[in-house]
């Protein structure tokens, strides 16, 4: 219904602003309804101003900046409506070392209510996990699962995990 949509929208917008500031410390993020008169049809604009920069179109953001802002939106949605399980497949690939650390920090805050399954090649994300699942193909074309401990690599045909 309209009221439900509006209430949820306002909550997500608030959380998006908060999460953005948590990640970037400065700057500004906002969600704007493209057509507030028609709540059942309206779209949602995302506006981002990065710290020290001017507000500009989303396409001008760099690859890493865009991914990080998308993460902020994801965590805002999770705050408003936590789901028990979230799966993220190499979401950290475009991020530099420092931004991966920020991502992992925020993720850990949500890990009380939500279980996260993270597919990743990044050592910082790997270290932040509580459980590890090693996946490999000891026989070509056939997936097998092997134990993995972060301090040592899996014994597999493709041993180098270091990124």
């Amino acid at each position: 219904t309209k009221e439900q949509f509006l209430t949820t929208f306002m909550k997500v917008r608030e959380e998006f602003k908060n999460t953005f500031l948590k990640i970037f410390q400065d700057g500004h993020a906002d969600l704007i309804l493209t057509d507030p008169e028609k709540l059942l049809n309206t779209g949602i604009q995302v506006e981002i101003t990065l710290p020290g920069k001017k507000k500009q179109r989303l396409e001008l953001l760099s690859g890493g900046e865009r991914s990080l802002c998308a993460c902020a939106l994801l965590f805002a949605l999770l705050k408003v409506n936590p789901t028990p399980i979230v799966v993220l497949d190499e979401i950290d690939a475009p991020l530099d070392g420092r931004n991966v650390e920020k991502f992992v920090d925020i993720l850990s805050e949500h890990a009380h209510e939500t279980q996260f399954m993270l597919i990743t090649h990044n050592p910082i994300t790997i270290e932040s996990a509580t459980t590890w699942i090693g996946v490999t193909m000891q026989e070509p074309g056939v997936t097998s699962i092997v134990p993995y401990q972060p301090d040592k690599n899996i014994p597999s045909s493709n041993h180098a995990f270091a990124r």
Partner: protein
Amino acid sequence: LKLKSIRIYGFKSFAEKVDLNISGNIIAVIGPNGCGKSNIVDALLWCIGEQNPRNLRAQNSEEFIFNGSKARKPLGYAEVSVHFEMDEDHTSPHGKDLLITRRIKRSGESSYMINKKNCRLKDIIDILADSGLGKSGYAVVGQKEIDSALTASPYDRRIWIDEAA
């Protein structure tokens, strides 16, 4: 609702049965390129009811079943079981443990089970919706998809809010 284990046999590159035991809240899945990590995500989504092969990187449902390797013949069926543990406050007619199973044969015949008893897809979707694991798109972000979350059309973005509502 907590994910406890995923068992996969015959789904995509899983020619041998594997058991993924899951504990803790941040689970890292690690492995070389092409070894089957994203296939685990597809298996989980498929098991809990994903109907569109396009969302699972396949053209049709036959591409879900192991289609052979140099040394092995294709298999005749695929089966994925996901074991969830319900929260304290969620009582369900199925008890504390929920084992959801989905199977598909090359003929295209698909069957579902809850705690080893045949059921319909609708039963699975209903029970998961109650526990918060509804069809929300933002609960699974596939490889390379994170970028499109921001640059998607304004209308696409409202869907995320609708799901959260």
